[in-house]
């Protein structure tokens, strides 16, 4: 059984990798507009936590996520097989746990703790806040964490690797066309995402599959479902009570004792394979397991959800008023956006000029790691709508390209103290030349100046707010590069230009 499990883990991990890396801009086919080779949606259709939570928060539902019903039904029959056989994050943890055990990290014996309940409380916490329109699943859902970890942390590292001088051209081309899709990956929050991701992995050296056993809310959801699952591990009378199965159970499900917790069992089958007398079997077994969630724990998780939410909501300034809150084109209003966005980072991965970034606090605490555009890192490409194409939940709408070109994400302003024609009476025009709208949102106001007794014409750029879409290319290309003389703020955002 264990062998099949391994094959399944590897297969699903490979599928995950393929879907993830295939969600990349197509750089070879110049015949059409911006397109992706594949999407990342398919990663999340096995994830009822994201589905339910996003529905609770946003009251929107996309049909494709109905697929997760299959996983719910399967779990009701088979138990928590997802964690042991499918989940790519679980497989990563499993791999590192294996390494940790080979390196003899687990000196202490596998003693039982009650901390496994944490993940259920976390699950309640998340679902409870979702009712109030706050979608926390992005921070705690394992699939969102891996996608984000790979996209925001691993890809920037790979892009550094790609830049190494001595790398052969063929490898560089492979990375450029199939893995990275662009040369530069800079994210202000990459270190934080990376730290979080690595921390969860490092915890495996303390306890095998730490995340899965103690924290994972998706595991919790599948655990609750598998409480009544039709198939379970059953111990028969030939058991010698040697306890070896309990010792090797990574999931702390105690298959060798009266209090076997089927909700914890990830069907890893280490126990079945270890048992010297074959006393354990995976069969039809309808005794429901005890998950002894305390009432106190339930109450305190709900109360803390309430308290947490109030704390979030009394944050001092209204995040919507933050001038740098430039949302991707297709993100309508802030409230719906926060309810729908699962912080997976897909949009940032495909944004061809590195415009989209994980937010720090620009969108408030609750908008941490949601995408915002930052014109000092890049700009929004006029003919691109990739973020809308990849967004798995529709937080960024998939706009038709003609609508995308009219979608306002912000408005440009000129800093006359720094803009070269205003400040020094010299001509510049870089912003005007790059402004992609037609007619251009930047125009010139000509005036004559006297210099060394000679008259000549200086053209001062001006922004027409009726035409500006806030793409930020003017800021990005402004030759006053340290603190650009033209900048974009979020004052006017959402909706199409008429």
């Amino acid at each position, binding site marked *: 059984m264990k062998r099949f499990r391994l094959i399944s883990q590897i297969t699903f991990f490979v599928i995950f990798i393929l879907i993830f890396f295939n969600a990349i*801009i197509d*750089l070879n086919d*110049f*015949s*059409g*507009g*911006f397109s992706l080779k594949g999407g990342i949606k398919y990663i999340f259709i096995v994830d009822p936590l994201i589905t339910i939570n996003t529905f609770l928060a946003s009251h929107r539902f996309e049909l494709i996520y109905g697929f997760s019903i299959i996983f719910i039904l399967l779990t009701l029959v088979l138990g928590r097989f997802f964690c042991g056989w499918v989940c790519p994050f679980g497989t990563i943890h499993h791999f590192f746990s294996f390494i940790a055990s080979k390196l003899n990290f687990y000196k202490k014996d596998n003693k039982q703790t009650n901390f496994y309940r944490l993940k259920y409380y976390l699950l309640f916490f998340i679902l409870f806040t979702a009712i109030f329109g706050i979608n926390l699943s992005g921070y705690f859902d394992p699939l969102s964490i891996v996608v984000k970890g790979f996209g925001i942390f691993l890809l920037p590292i790979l892009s550094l690797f790609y*830049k190494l001088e001595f790398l052969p*051209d063929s490898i*560089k*081309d492979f990375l*450029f066309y199939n893995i990275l899709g662009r*040369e530069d990956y800079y994210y202000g929050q990459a270190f934080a995402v990376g730290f979080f991701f690595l921390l969860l992995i490092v915890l495996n050296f303390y306890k095998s599959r730490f995340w899965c056993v103690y924290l994972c809310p998706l595991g919790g959801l599948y655990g609750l479902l598998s409480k009544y699952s039709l198939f379970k591990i059953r111990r028969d009378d030939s058991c010698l009570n040697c306890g070896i199965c309990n010792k090797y159970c990574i999931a702390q499900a105690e298959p060798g004792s009266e209090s076997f917790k089927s909700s914890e069992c990830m069907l890893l089958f280490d126990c079945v394979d270890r048992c010297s007398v074959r006393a354990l079997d995976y069969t039809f077994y309808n005794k429901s397991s005890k998950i002894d969630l305390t009432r106190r724990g339930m109450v305190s998780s709900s109360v803390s959800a309430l308290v947490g939410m109030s704390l979030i909501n009394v944050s001092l300034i209204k995040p919507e008023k933050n001038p740098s809150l430039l949302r991707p084109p297709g993100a309508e209003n802030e409230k719906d956006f926060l309810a729908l966005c699962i912080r997976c980072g897909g949009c940032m991965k495909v944004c*061809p*000029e590195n415009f989209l970034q994980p937010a720090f606090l620009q969108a408030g605490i609750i908008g941490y790691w949601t995408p915002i555009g930052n014109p000092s890192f890049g700009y929004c*490409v*006029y*003919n*691109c709508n990739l973020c809308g194409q990849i967004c798995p939940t529709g937080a960024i709408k998939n706009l038709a390209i003609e609508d995308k070109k009219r979608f306002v994400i912000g408005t440009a302003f000129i800093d006359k103290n720094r803009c070269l024609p205003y400040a020094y009476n010299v*001509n510049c*025009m*870089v912003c*005007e*030349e*790059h402004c*992609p*709208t*037609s*007619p*251009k949102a930047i125009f010139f106001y000509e005036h004559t100046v006297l210099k060394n007794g000679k008259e000549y014409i200086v053209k001062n750029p001006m922004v027409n707010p009726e035409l500006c879409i806030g793409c930020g*290319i003017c800021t990005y*290309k402004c*030759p006053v*590069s340290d603190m650009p003389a033209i900048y974009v703020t979020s004052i006017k955002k959402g909706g199409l230009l008429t």
Partner: protein
Amino acid sequence: MINRRNFLKFGFATSVAMSIPSLAEGGIKSNLAIAESTDHRKAASTAIEMLGGIDKFIKKGDVVAIKPNMAWAREPQYAANTNPEVVAEVIKLCYKAGAKKVIVTDNPCDNARSVFNLSKIPLLAQKENADVFIPQRRHYENMDIGGKFLGQWPVLKIFKEVDKVINIPVAKNHSSSKVTIGMKNWMGAIGGNRGFLHQNLHQAIFELATFFKPNLTLIDCTRIMLQGGPSGGSLSYVRKLNRIIATTDVVAGDAVACEYLEINPYDVRYLTLAADNGLGRISKSNMNIQYEKI
């Protein structure tokens, strides 16, 4: 827009200026072939034919790199990029002359994927079996430009590695250098912080044109941009001329195209700089101009 009367006056002044023979440019005259046809492929092939035929420039087994102006995310009709039909025709001719491989690339100002798609040049070039690629950092190499202003600078090395190079610019008005035609087209073959070059733009253009020595320059005047350049974006800036200029003297070609753009070539500093330093001829009396309309 320039009104008609001014245009006439202006045109007259230019042609007078241009017909003053310049002693500095003395001696041999530069050959210039201008072909006009509403079939732009035909215009391109005729212009080359008038200059002596493609076999004069491309030999069997040559690897050829073509440098179109492919800088802006605009469709062909806006004249912000070279006419894709013209590029495609040249590729076809190169293969006909026995070229081993033809490569087309450029370092655009807008997002490369966007430019490569909208300009339609890659699409048509690929149909003619040319190699088209988006430049990555590894395609640049620091080279010694050997100028007074430009020393070491990252260059798209393909244009220095191949056997033959063909420059196919489009004639446009330019907000900072007045015009961008053949000489300025080489700005697209370098990397680095190009904004920096604006500090001494004309010198930089001159030095780059000296550094890149194409075997043939074909100036696309099938439609030219008289205003709002270099990126344009309005059809009202564009005039259809249906002409192609073929030459080996980029200065002469630029000077003639300047007239089309209603600019006196003597007012364009990089052109006078180039003429004074012997890169080519600016005065029409030093050119052999052939013109044919099909």
